[in-house]
């Protein structure tokens, strides 16, 4: 994300006076970040190695019990499903938004932005109501005769995945739309002139050229999904618990700070690892 804002201009024209003591300007924000972000996160990580006894015991517990391993597999499974579904659904929408007449695409964008900025709890509540056993979706399917008894769509991975795709979709549509809109149309015209049919142009030209957008959006959704708390906690159940919920429970209900800290560290390490992967990928792409 750091790459989305451009860097300051390096040395303006002429002998421009440099800002005197730039560190004084960043100091207030830096103090805030250091005291209330870096210090507490480091303290939590240290506790994961010290409580209740010094050593790697917490990590052994975390990776040694089937309960916790289940939480890890749920987390990665949901993140994977949500990412895959969001990309497949989001790509055609981003494509359409990139090439529709501006008047239309502006209106459609407004709908996406409104959905994105609607309170997260309000949106999750909507899905809790829609997906419940007596909810509209089950009732409609039953009255159409498609099912005989209500499907259990909530308190499990299905519910979590539906609710999360709903929340994550804008995060693939918006960046991907920008990438597709910036593709030079003459490249596709050239492909057509050289005899490529629509399918060939799609698979061999449009898709590869959209790949940076797809990768960036997909990684962002995957990373966000891994650490998501609210939607899994409300739409999921005991058997579909994800990592963020586990961390909250270990710390708040069970007061196991060491184990909770270890789980937080695992989440943090995976998130940062994927984030650096994305930065390197973007650099490599730009450097081509």
């Amino acid at each position, binding site marked *: 994300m750091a790459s989305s804002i451009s860097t300051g201009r390096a040395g303006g024209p002429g002998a421009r006076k440099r800002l005197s003591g730039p560190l004084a300007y960043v100091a207030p924000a830096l103090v805030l970040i250091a005291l209330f972000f870096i210090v507490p996160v480091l303290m939590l990580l240290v506790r994961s190695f010290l409580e209740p006894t010094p050593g790697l015991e917490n990590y052994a517990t975390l990776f040694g019990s089937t309960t916790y391993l289940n939480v890890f597999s749920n987390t990665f499974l949901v993140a994977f499903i949500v990412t895959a579904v969001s990309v497949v659904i989001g790509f055609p929408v981003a494509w359409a938004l990139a090439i529709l007449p501006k008047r239309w695409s502006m209106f459609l964008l407004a709908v996406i932005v*409104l959905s994105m900025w609607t309170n997260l709890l309000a949106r999750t509540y*909507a899905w809790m109501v829609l997906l419940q056993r007596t909810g509209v979706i089950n009732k409609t399917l039953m009255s159409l005769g498609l099912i005989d008894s209500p499907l259990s769509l909530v308190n499990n991975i299905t519910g979590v995945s539906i609710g999360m795709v709903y929340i994550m979709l804008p995060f693939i549509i918006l960046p991907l739309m920008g990438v597709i809109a910036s593709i030079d149309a003459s490249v596709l015209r050239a492909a*057509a002139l050289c005899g490529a049919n*629509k399918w060939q142009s799609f698979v061999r030209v449009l898709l590869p050229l959209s790949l940076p957008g797809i990768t960036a959006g997909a990684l962002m959704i995957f990373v966000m999904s891994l650490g998501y708390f609210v939607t899994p906690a409300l739409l999921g159940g005991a058997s579909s618990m994800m990592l963020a919920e586990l961390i909250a429970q270990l710390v708040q209900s069970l007061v196991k700070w060491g184990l909770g800290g270890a789980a937080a560290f695992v989440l943090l390490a995976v998130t940062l690892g994927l984030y650096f992967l994305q930065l390197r990928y973007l650099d490599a792409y730009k450097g081509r």
Partner: protein
Amino acid sequence: MLLDFNRLGALRYFLLAFTGLVLLFLILPIVFIAALSFGSSQWLIFPPPSWTLKWYQELFSDPRWLYTALTSLKIAAIVTVLSVVLGFLASLGLNRGEFAGREQLRALFLTPMILPVIVLAVALYALFLRLGLAGTTVGFVIAHLLVALPFSIISISNALEGFDRSIEDAAILCGASPWEARIKITVPSIRHGLFTAAVFSFLASWDEVVLAIFMSSPTLQTLPVKIWTTLRQDLTPVVAAVSTILVALTFLLIFVPLVFRKRQKDD
């Protein structure tokens, strides 16, 4: 011609229909909740048997809802002011200062935005328990400021990028002090960036729920925490009423400035 809408042929009907369906998927649940908030069914039956305002009455007759909303408002207002001021200073330093590690510092400032909020929430909770800041307004403000500041820095940095600094230099040549020039020339020129920073900072705090769950106490709750604790018990239609009001407010906050700005441009 996959990038020319008029020459897509049959494919364009598929794209249009698919996009239409996805947008319905995005917008219908919100409309659905708004409709249910006026429905008479306690069990949220749709379509509602009859229409009523009783959930709104119940909402406004319970002082706790109003109280938590005011708490949210107060915290979001303080966070907005601090976030814009700190964001402006930090952006000035980052954009104009030349020092080693500037880009690393910029990345550090944006990190709270990409890290899982739950990690930050648990870590801050541990620290605040020790400092006695858990369950206090100060604790809430610090927590929300951490997630609001990246939005502020991005908006203001972008605005500063687009601002021609020689205007500020001219004011200084004409005798203004550096701060006089900044406040009288730079601040008005980047007001759109500052405004965007304020809106995003406000929304980041107003809508924030994960940090708030950990920062709250039985006596100090924000509106999202109140919704959260209510939803953990049952799916009362009162939450539909709150949600509808929140959607309406978001709509006003996002689209009224857009329309207003467009008018200004058209004039």
